[in-house]
């Protein structure tokens, strides 16, 4: 963490995609700072580049221009392999479609995040049990994803995202596939857990009620972030 508590900083992020015979500049210089434990919601029209911005922040997609800092370290200097390793420690990702591995049970899905960093230790297994209990699935850890409801699957995904104690959680429409009541419950859980873990949260959502519950709010439009 930097001296002023900033864990994530993006400067002038630009991203272009070819579209037919012209080039579409989806992000035209996005600046962003996120402090430790802070939550930020991003809204915007479909196709405005919200998911692309999350992928750029996560280092999953290369930027055309701009700089990205994780805990004051410029990620562009890292090799692809180091970036992957740092990502496993620094960022936890939650997706609209949950993305659980269907062949392994809920407990193993959560533990997979720790496996990415090497052989899971006893501490990791204890933490998995703790997180499963915290998300209300302590009795369902041995169930395969196919036997879980949508809300339960997203709870597993939240536990997985938090397992390695990442500094930043990137949630891409985490309630998009859920009914209103379940969605509200998932957001409550996500905000509570980020608060407990001290993790910063970037929440991409279409729901203005959900967006209002974060510390800061922004709208992505015309290739730039506009803060309230």
């Amino acid at each position: 963490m930097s001296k002023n508590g900033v864990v994530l900083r993006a400067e002038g992020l630009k991203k272009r995609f070819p579209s037919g015979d012209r080039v579409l500049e989806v992000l035209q210089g996005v600046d962003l700072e996120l402090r430790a434990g802070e939550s930020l919601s991003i809204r915007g029209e479909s196709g405005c580049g919200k998911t692309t911005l999350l992928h750029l922040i996560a280092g999953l997609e290369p930027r055309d221009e701009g700089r990205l800092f994780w805990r004051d370290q410029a990620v562009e200097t890292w090799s692809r392999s180091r970036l992957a390793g740092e990502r496993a420690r620094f960022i936890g990702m939650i997706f609209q479609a949950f993305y659980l591995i269907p062949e392994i049970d809920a407990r193993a899905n959560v533990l997979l995040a720790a496996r990415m960093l090497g052989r899971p230790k006893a501490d990791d297994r204890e933490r998995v049990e703790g997180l499963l209990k915290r998300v209300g699935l302590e009795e369902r850890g041995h169930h395969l994803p196919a036997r879980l409801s949508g809300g339960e699957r997203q709870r597993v995904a939240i536990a997985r995202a938090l397992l390695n104690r990442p500094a930043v959680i990137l949630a891409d429409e985490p309630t998009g596939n859920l009914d209103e009541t379940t969605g509200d419950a998932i957001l409550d859980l996500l905000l509570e857990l980020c608060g407990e873990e001290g993790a910063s949260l970037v929440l991409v959502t279409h729901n203005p009620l959900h967006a209002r519950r974060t510390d800061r709010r922004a709208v992505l439009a015309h290739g730039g972030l506009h803060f309230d």
Partner: protein
Amino acid sequence: MSWYLYLALRQLFPAGKRFPFITLVSVAGVMLGVAVLIIVLGVMNGFGEEIRRKVVDTQGHLRVESGQILYRYQEVIAELEQRPEVVAAVPYAAGMVMVQHANRPAFPLVQGIDPAAEQGVMPLDDFLIYGRPEDLDDDSVFLSVFLARSLGVIPGGEVEIYSPLLLERLRQDEILLPRSVRVAGLFETGWHQIDENTVITTLRLMQDLYGLGDGVHGIKVRLRDRDDPDTVVAALNRELEPPLRAISWLDANRDFLFILQLEKNVLFFLLLFIVLVSAFAITSSLLITVVRKTREIGLLGALGARPWQVGQCFCLQGLFIGICGTSLGFAFGFLALHFRNDIIQTFARLTQSEAALVRFYQFSVLPAETDPRDLFLIAAASLVISTLAGLIPAWRAARLDPTEALRSE
């Protein structure tokens, strides 16, 4: 356990789910290829081993010959018997004759032996199905079973032997009558080449038939089983005075053994194609898996997986399919080899080809012998091919862009 190893195992053998059909088909392909290789090479080795045993039992491990009639053979035998690796050395005389019974002629190979000493090289006791070794004298012969059958003679009956010496004497305007001998016994070695057309006589009788006097054609030598015939032959050839020379059974049957080895190698190469075809099945099934799991591959990238680790996950699946298929192939192959005679007899009965099997394959039971080197080669080839089959899907998976994968429908 690394995550890619763990995930590879789980994708092939999911917890709480049935064995995936696609995995089952891939494993079955490798299993069949490996099993067929083990069975066929086992039987080929069995034929080779059986031939070696029959040749050694009937010809000895090596022969000492001079290319001429050997008269002072007792001295050579005494020298040979002083060597620690020599179990027995016996004289022999061999050649073609015409045998006739009730106007039925045959042209068998005659082996003249010393019945008392011969037991050291050829287990005559084991081969005789009628008569005893001591029944053989200078007025009697032992006939191989198929020869006796074709002549229509039974033990106690008489046959006439015409030797090449008769022709020799005819040229000198002498008439030599054929030798009339009694059939004192019948033998069967189990090797059709010998059982079809062989007569065993005393050495004395053969010497008379071929006009050898006190001479013989050579000496058959049996070695201790642990000794290598080629090594002993090389040592003997350094010591024996020309024109005497030693020939191992391997040298005497080199062409036949070469054909046998060539057949085995060609069969290995051809049957390996079954494993190769199953490797294509592995590749296609894993490629389908890569397409089906595109978004999960994207997720792995998002969780911090490196591309080579994602590739490993699929390459290892090829290896695991290879391990399962090879293990099951070994089990199935050994099981089939264990029950090979029951299987072959059932098959022969169903196709009414029992007689043909004996006639063409020389043996009444199907021999089998597994060579550890063959087993190692089969296992290594199968595992390498299966692992290579996983490389293309692994490469595809490793090259997937996580963001594209996560966006895929």
